[in-house]
């Protein structure tokens, strides 16, 4: 019987009632008396010297309060980068200043040059058109390989080159890896592009800055996945505001997908301008602006080589990747192609030698940072594509080749510095074969052929590292912050509970799933428990939501805090029951003296804590509220196997996905329905990357897919019904819930199987096509078929 509440129940998402009835409170719903509006004049060229910004005429336009330019921000800090990567020579990465408003130079289309604050948004926009810019155009630095060549135009004149870092991982493995390639019986090589993407959350970014002179208090309302991180970065590094004078609120947020992790110029601007002008200042991004100002994702150009011995065992893996940073380093950009990518190159396989080289490059493009999966999709894609290519070259079954090379014993220390605590890759592959009906594929292919279509089957495995991360480890790797999380469990007098969490929910369903855990631990109904998140004045210092970490890290903090609460409540119960607290058991909301029928209800104990008339005041404090910070001992390692079946129209190149199946191991699952939903959404984004989404620039640095007219988002009719399964569960061994995280799996695990399936379809129809770069649009597939 499925449970109807607590851990393992598919409780309905309580937050959906307000979202679906239009009752959510998003940042754009926040309007403060007297607020003014800012419009950013953004660069329409990719690279230029700014000779002058003349605001004299614009300043006289109706309603204009003030126009800010780069020089206003010169004495103020730039936007900080939160991760410093050390290159293969032991030198720190090159780190350019990232100004709030462009100063001296424009470095990408969309970069804010001036900010007009006016009484209305229309007035601000009108005035911005009157600003006179004198620019001297410079050549746009677009191609990464050309950008790092000798004599290339520099994006940043004060850096030695456009190379941010040249990272080798693990550098000590390089010689042995190269030697293994010399001895290989077979080497498969693949060059590929991991296409640049725009995250496109449904809600564009918004910021409202407010300042109260009476108590010198700054407040920023913003569309963020991690309000405490924004408070730390903006307060300490940009504006110099101490934490107790700065409150950051991220209310309902309509999707993040990574792009709302980062600290953006608009947030700093609105906070700064509100104090300067003594007026609340609001910015609401248009969708067009979002394309030009939200951090993009992916954008890797990679060569990967796989060495195999005569028995088809993987003996070594070697990669060289160019990773686009864009014009500036976004908050966590340097970590994505390195520690979130290189560490995953072992995948599900026991390849003994791996060497990863990553060259991060500055170009005149919008900054690139984490997007759902962040580094792990790039790692998975190249690995699972090269394994598939190897199987085809060797004429062996792609599933069998994977199986043969699976890691089977845990814990497993990879040659790329991480230790998988647990997993069972054979189990997820077996489950996949069952739910995908791999055995029935041949019949389905015959049916497709009868209808004039080519049919292909693609399979891939994936592993990811989630639950980021042990703070002491990431500190050694260059993180400039800790990566714990925190929760406060506040029990009210009548027994209801508010849990203040550092994680932020913007689609993940925390408001439903987190109470399920507390309900399970205490035995009170879920609706007696509420989650509070998104406001630095209400929640403990937590690091927010990204990297599928909320339940594994913040959820663990919540469990620790709840354990403290329960331990204290048992002491109170023991007093009330005149027993020893060691003998008190808590079940279904009742404290019972073990082996007796003496019991007291949860509500009676909580009331006693707040009305301590009959209470051991000499031993314990009144009240019932505990906080815990949790710093994980290791990453978590969700893993799984995905299968995609496509039909390809030989006349047009159009790919349709006929079946898609996902067998995931997320460890323990709190709410299976929410987990399925997370996988569904992730697969949609993965299929979007594989077939549709293409963030494309021309050679002058103009974004040519700058609206939905040219940037193809996946729609319902692009997608099949999915078969998803998460019954294979090897619980995480080092967190109290045994959970691993599920938010990114779909986006990580799906692109390779889609491409593998298309290649299978084409090759099976006799086409000599070994690779097509994503997105596999009809035009690209047709072009490939023409040879």
């Amino acid at each position: 019987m499925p449970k109807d509440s607590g851990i393992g129940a598919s409780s309905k998402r309580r937050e959906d009632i307000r979202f679906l009835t239009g009752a959510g409170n998003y940042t754009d719903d926040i309007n403060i008396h007297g607020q003014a509006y800012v419009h950013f004049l953004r660069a329409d060229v990719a690279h230029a010297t700014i000779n002058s910004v003349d605001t004299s005429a614009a300043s006289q336009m109706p309603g204009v309060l003030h126009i800010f330019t780069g020089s206003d921000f010169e004495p103020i800090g730039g936007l900080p980068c939160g991760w410093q990567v050390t290159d293969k020579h032991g030198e720190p990465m090159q780190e350019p200043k990232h100004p709030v408003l462009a100063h001296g130079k424009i470095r990408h289309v969309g970069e804010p040059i001036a900010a007009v604050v006016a009484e209305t948004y229309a007035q601000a926009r009108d005035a911005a058109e009157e600003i006179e810019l004198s620019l001297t155009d410079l050549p746009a630095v677009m191609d990464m390989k050309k950008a790092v060549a000798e004599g290339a135009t520099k994006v940043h004149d004060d850096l030695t080159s456009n190379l941010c870092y040249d990272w080798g991982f693990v550098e000590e493995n390089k010689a042995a890896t190269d030697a293994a390639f010399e001895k290989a019986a077979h080497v498969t090589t693949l060059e590929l592009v991991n296409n640049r993407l725009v995250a496109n959350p449904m809600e564009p970014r918004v910021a409202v800055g407010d300042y109260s002179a009476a108590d010198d208090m700054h407040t920023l309302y913003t569309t963020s996945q991690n309000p405490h991180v924004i408070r730390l970065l903006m307060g300490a590094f940009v504006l110099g505001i101490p934490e107790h004078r700065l409150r950051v609120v991220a209310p309902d947020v309509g999707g993040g997908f990574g792009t709302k992790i980062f600290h953006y110029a608009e947030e700093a601007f609105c906070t700064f301008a509100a104090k300067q002008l003594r007026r609340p200042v609001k910015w609401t991004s248009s969708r067009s602006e979002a394309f030009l100002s939200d951090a993009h994702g992916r954008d890797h150009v990679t060569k990967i080589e796989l060495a195999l011995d005569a028995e088809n065992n993987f003996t070594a893996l070697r990669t060289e990747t160019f990773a686009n940073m864009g014009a500036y380093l976004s908050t966590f950009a340097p970590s994505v192609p390195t520690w979130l990518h290189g560490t995953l190159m072992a995948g599900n396989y026991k390849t003994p030698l791996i060497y990863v080289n990553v060259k991060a490059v500055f170009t005149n493009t919008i900054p690139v940072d984490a997007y759902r999966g962040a580094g792990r999709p790039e790692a998975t894609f190249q690995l699972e594509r090269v394994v598939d290519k190897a199987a085809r070259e060797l004429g062996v079954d792609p599933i069998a080749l994977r199986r043969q090379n699976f890691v089977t014993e845990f814990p497993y220390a990879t040659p790329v510095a991480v230790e998988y605590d647990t997993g069972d890759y054979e189990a997820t592959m077996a489950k996949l074969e069952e739910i995908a009906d791999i055995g029935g594929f041949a019949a389905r292919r015959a049916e497709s052929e009868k209808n004039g279509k080519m049919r292909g089957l693609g399979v891939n495995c994936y592993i990811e590292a989630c639950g980021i991360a042990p703070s002491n480890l990431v500190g050694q790797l260059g993180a400039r912050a800790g990566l714990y999380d925190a929760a406060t469990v506040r029990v009210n007098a009548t027994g209801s509970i508010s849990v203040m969490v550092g994680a932020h929910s913007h689609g993940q369903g925390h408001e439903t799933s987190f109470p399920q855990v507390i309900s399970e631990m205490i035995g009170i109904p879920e609706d007696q428990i509420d989650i509070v998140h998104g406001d630095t004045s209400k929640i403990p210092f937590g690091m927010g939501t990204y990297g599928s970490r909320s339940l594994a890290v913040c959820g663990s903090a919540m469990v620790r805090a709840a354990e403290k609460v329960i331990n204290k409540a048992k002491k109170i119960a023991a007093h009330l029951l005149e027993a020893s607290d060691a003998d008190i058991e808590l079940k279904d909301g009742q404290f019972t003296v073990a082996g007796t029928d003496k019991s007291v209800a949860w509500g009676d104990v909580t009331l006693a804590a707040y009305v301590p008339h009959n209470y051991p005041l000499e031993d314990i404090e009144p009240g019932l509220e505990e906080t815990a910070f949790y710093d994980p001992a290791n990453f978590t390692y969700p893993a799984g196997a995905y299968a995609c079946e496509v039909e390809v129209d030989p006349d047009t190149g159009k790919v349709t996905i006929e079946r898609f199946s996902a067998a995931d191991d997320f460890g323990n699952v709190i709410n299976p329905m929410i987990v399925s939903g997370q996988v569904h959404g992730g697969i949609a984004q993965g299929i979007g990357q594989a077939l549709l989404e293409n963030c494309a620039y021309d050679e002058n640095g103009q974004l040519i897919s700058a609206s939905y007219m040219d940037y193809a988002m996946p729609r319902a009719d692009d997608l099949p019904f999915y078969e998803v399964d998460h019954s294979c569960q090897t619980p995480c061994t080092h967190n109290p819930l045994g959970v691993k995280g599920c938010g990114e799996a779909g986006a990580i695990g799906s692109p390779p199987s889609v491409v593998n399936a298309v290649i299978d379809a084409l090759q099976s129809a006799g086409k000599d096509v070994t690779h097509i770069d994503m997105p596999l649009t009809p035009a690209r597939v047709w072009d490939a078929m023409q040879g």
Partner: protein
Amino acid sequence: MYAFEIERPGTLADAVNALKGEDAQALGGGQTLIPTLKARLAMPATLVSLSGIGEMKGVCIGDDGAVCIGGATTHAAVVREAAAHYPALADLASHIGDPAVRNRGTIGGSLANNDPSACYPSAVLGSGATIITNARDIVADEFFDGMFATALDEGEVITEVRFPVPEKANYQKFVQPASRFALVGVFVAKYSDGVRVAVTGASEDGVFRWSEAEEALSRDFSADAIGGLEVSADGMIADLHGSSAYRAHLVKVMTGRAVVAAA
């Protein structure tokens, strides 16, 4: 958008009059014009809304059997009201944009805009329809004048479009993946006196008739009839979504499919 005045005339005469004002512009369903205004790419002084003019709405059958569609008729109304009379046309209308677009966008607005990737121009040209304006009748072959250009004069309003009903017809749209406009759309219509084939989405000159296919199909209305024909890539659109060679190829593929579906 910039500030503008809006007029909402209830009659065609009032609309024509209002359009004589300086920098006045007709507003049909606004499915192109409103986004253009929001992007500040147009700055009309006055918008004259045509959506309140009852005499320009609806579908009827003319004395000669032609399907007559008022210029301010929405795509959704065409889907409902033309289905029994000209199913291929109703089917085309049912695949324009999304429900919001179909419930606001109008046939007159689409034709006056003449987007090179719009669907309606292919049906109008492929049917040899007649565009009726407040001033004159314009045959389809003389109406379309390249990308976003038509024979319409300043202030001229499309009041009605008259479609002769073919024996058989079909529209095949191969969608551009992002916009879902036609990457290539082909309308094929078989009349007693011959076959017309009109192509949208493909050419830098906008909608055009593929005359070689028309000749071949007039002799033999089957996909095989065009098997030996080739479409030149010269003058075809090349962009992010497909090369000119790809579009030329799709013209033939979609024509063949339209013939099969119509037959």
